[in-house]
């Protein structure tokens, strides 16, 4: 629930945006980040941008999330 995903703003009208990350595009709002502009990388949480984020941090996070996705997809042999 804490998790926020970095994404790039690829469309923007007023505070309604379309953001792009990891091969997906989805709608988000920049209501909480009025200074965000088209092309910016932002952290999205529960449909809202909460912070700007730099390229390096975004790339690290995407890589981590991709690893997690891979891990989740493979059968998990470790159990309690």
């Amino acid at each position, binding site marked *: *629930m*804490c*998790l*926020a995903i970095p994404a790039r703003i690829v469309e923007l009208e007023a505070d309604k945006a379309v953001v792009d990350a990891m091969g997906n595009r989805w*709608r*988000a*709002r920049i*209501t*909480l*980040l*009025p200074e965000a502009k088209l092309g910016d990388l932002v*952290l999205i*949480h*529960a*449909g*809202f941008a*909460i*912070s*700007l*984020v*730099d390229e*390096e*941090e975004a790339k*690290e*996070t995407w890589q*981590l999330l991709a690893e*997690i996705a891979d*891990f989740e997809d493979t059968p*998990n042999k*470790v*159990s*309690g």
Partner: protein
Amino acid sequence: MLERIQKAQKLCDAASKALGRQINIMEVCGTHTVAIFRNGIRSILPKHSKLLSGPGCPVCVTDQGYIDTVLQLADREDCLIATYGDMIRVPGKTGSLETKQAKANVKVVLSSEDALQLAKDNPEKTVVFVAVGFETTAPATAVVVKEAAVESIDNFCILSGHKLVVPAMRALVSEKNHNIDAFLCPGHVSVIIGYGAFAEIVEDFDRPCVVAGFEPMQIIEGLAEICRQLSAGKAELKSVYAAVVTKEGNTAAQKIIDECFEPADGYWRGLGKIEKSTLKLKDKYSRFDALRRFDITQTQGEDTSGCRCGEVLCGLIEPPECGLFGQDCTLQEPVGPCMVSSEGACAAWFKYGGAGNQETRV
């Protein structure tokens, strides 16, 4: 990277030597709980350095009374329940939202906006948004409450389960668990509230508070900084998450929380009643408060017999110490929310708690 890990290990070792005992660091973020497990961070910590999982998972700390209220509303023919996904499996007295989904009046949403849209699309029903989350998520709720007011979407309301992290940390360190030496503070909550919000924990309780992101080296940096402070005997407020966390936080988000909500006393699973620790809609927006709309008084719920989520959430026990863990309570058939939630300590322990995550025994 190896160098940084070794440096962190030396610092942890030095800290436990300086204090002459085991040091206990509590993390209060569900994402940290999972990241620590997934990356086997416990296994690289030296002997005498222990990581405690705290009440950092919003679903896990939601009191049973709240869950039962949601289920009560789900039983109403005139209601549609809109909820984030991780809430739907939490068991209550009359089943869970998932079992009630069969009645088609429970919808999983990805954002508060979707919940408001549900109300617009279903004018003949009242949509109740199950608004659970810490300060990271509360602004998203506030935005749509404001919009509902402006656009007169009167068939929309929220059941606020929003909670504040700092009051919980206070309750923990002042009464619930006297063995916490320091806090690893949540990254994305801090984006909203600013790392300055933890200053009172440092000042009033003399505990180091360090904000870190959830990437493994971030966590290690955070732990290293905490141990450096413990060795020096001087608690400080720091953030190692410079990429996105500032001291003041996101002021636009804080403003909108403040416009719609006010702190109120509330019940937390495991921690009981904590003063001014939950968010309640201000009178100006009271018509969007499901409790007031449906005239419900929320009381503290009872946990299932044998479920020790409460103690897990206070860092007093580890999941395997609960008699239900792995037996009656599993990922497939969870009893308590710490097993239901993807960020719960019990779920993390169950999924990832192999040999690499046990405490290092030398």
